[in-house]
């Protein structure tokens, strides 16, 4: 008799504690509100992020796809391009942003005015400016070759008809477009360094290069690292610069993984091969994501 009472009552107790632990400190009515507020995002996440992720993993889960992919010469050159794009694009851009953010720390109305012009590439939509760059690099009628001819009487090459100059154009376009954004971020990081620290350092003789090496950079290093990692991920997923500046040409030699995926899926109608091209970046993406998530979370806590 007594045992049966215990047996019946235990699940009830468990249920109550489970419900309480789910609710936390919120009272019944408030819990309903809190839940109702968070449900829209959970729905969006499940339907438009989690589901596509799972669907994509399923589409790219056949091993034979990768055998086919790796033997494709276009894929091989794409990997080289992606690595170059990442290595040069991210690092040159971030280094320029670091230097320029120091330049923009100078006082005066001129610096403020210059900053307004400087952020234009970021404010203007990518499609507009990348199309403009594409036409600028046209071998016959492009602005660049016209300038070269008018000023120096040099007949410029057809920039987008050669793999390396086309890839270079894509990288430079990316740097053009995104340096202002990261400069603003690093500028804000520099502004956040308390004035006292800089003043004390100056009194102790740490000015100019010394001040940068011993004071500014150590304080900016974590921010710089997070920016570099974030921009690596963003760049890996970048579709527009390649599509509009070089179009993946000449002869599919300047694709990166993001554009090759779309090309495989929609131009040669092999969606699974497209997913495989994107998925082959996972060995690089996953460690990056893990490090970034950890970094961003600790940064959040520190604030």
């Amino acid at each position, binding site marked *: 008799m007594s045992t049966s009472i215990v047996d019946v009552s235990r699940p009830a107790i468990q249920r109550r504690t489970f419900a309480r632990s789910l609710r936390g400190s919120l009272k019944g009515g408030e819990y309903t509100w809190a839940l109702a507020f*968070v449900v829209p995002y959970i729905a969006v996440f499940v339907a438009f992020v989690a589901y596509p992720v799972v669907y994509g993993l399923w589409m790219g889960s056949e091993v034979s796809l990768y055998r086919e992919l790796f033997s494709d010469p276009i894929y091989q050159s794409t990997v080289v391009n992606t690595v170059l794009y990442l290595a040069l694009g991210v690092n040159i851009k971030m280094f320029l942003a670091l230097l320029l953010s120091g330049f923009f720390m100078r006082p005066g109305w001129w610096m403020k005015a210059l900053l307004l012009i400087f952020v234009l590439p970021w404010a203007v939509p990518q499609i*507009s400016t990348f199309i403009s760059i594409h036409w600028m690099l046209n071998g016959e009628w492009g*602005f660049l070759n*016209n300038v070269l001819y008018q000023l120096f009487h040099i007949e410029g090459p057809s920039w987008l008809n050669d793999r390396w100059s086309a890839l270079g154009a894509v990288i430079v376009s990316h740097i053009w477009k995104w340096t202002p954004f990261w400069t603003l971020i690093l500028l804000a990081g520099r502004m956040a360094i308390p004035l006292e620290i800089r003043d004390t350092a100056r009194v102790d003789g740490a000015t100019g290069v010394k001040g940068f090496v011993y004071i500014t950079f150590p304080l900016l290093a974590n921010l710089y690292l997070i920016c570099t990692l974030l921009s690596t991920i963003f760049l890996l997923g970048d579709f527009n610069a390649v599509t509009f500046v070089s179009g993946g040409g000449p002869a599919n030699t300047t694709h990166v993984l993001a554009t090759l995926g779309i090309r495989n899926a929609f131009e040669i109608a092999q969606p699974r091969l497209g997913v495989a091209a994107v998925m082959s970046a996972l060995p690089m*993406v996953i460690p990056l994501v893990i490090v970034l998530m950890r970094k961003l979370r600790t940064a959040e806590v520190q604030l």
Partner: protein
Amino acid sequence: MSTITAEARLASRATSRVGSSVRLRRYLSTIGTVVLSTAIIVWTLVPIYNMVMISLEPEGDVFTDHIFPRVWSIESFWGVLTQGHWYLEHFWHQFANSIYMGAMVTILTLVIGSLTSFSIGRMRIRYGWLVSNAALLTYVIPASFLAIPFYRIMQNYGMANNLWSVIAALVAFATPYAFFVLQEYGRSIPIEVDESARIDGASPGQIYLRIYLPLMAPALVAVGTYAMLLAWNEYLYQFLLLSSKSSMTVPVALAQFLSSDQSPWNFMMATAIIYALPPVAIYYAFRRRMTSGLTMGGVKG
């Protein structure tokens, strides 16, 4: 007397030497600023100048080697605005689609982002960290990597050529950032504000509407601007999902120009400039808020 004048002369020479070295340094620094500023201006403006120049050239002059327009003409802008070229037949419809999409992405991102951040940041719902992590994960997954499965799913749902399929994708990718910025900004508002309202008998819904949203206004402006610019800059999802005349947006139409052999470059550049005007205006209007928002959410998490 003579020693005093000698000393004075020495001193004045010393100060003038110090003065001249300071002056030299200032001079060099001014030269450096001028050179660097010029380089920055030229570098920044060349692609934009190219866009403006070609849009101001009459059609025949595009295929020449001028670096200044020979004749200035607003013919191309007029052509776009009156849909006067056969490529531009549907310009206003496409523009309206772009605006509709941008507006919907902005509104939904603001609503969903602020509700989530209120529930997790202010009401401290249990397991809120799980949602934060989901958002963080979304933030670091490149959107283009999900384009193919997303396209397939939308095909299955019969949502292709529907603006809402793109809106859904963009809201999903814009909300995490919105959520972080709002969380971060919300920390500056003491939780006691909510608690005292609760003691006075306000329901969570009332606290959200009457207290949370008004106090969060600056961050909401930053987030809204961000979402709008994201939608305006986006191309891939629009290209994949919107191909019919009725659903097409300006970027998709512009890209179609690019792939044709006889591209009317002056009209394209005029279209590109008109398309760029709204985001540039919005960006410069809300510039200050944007930058602070970026540093709050974009980098610090």
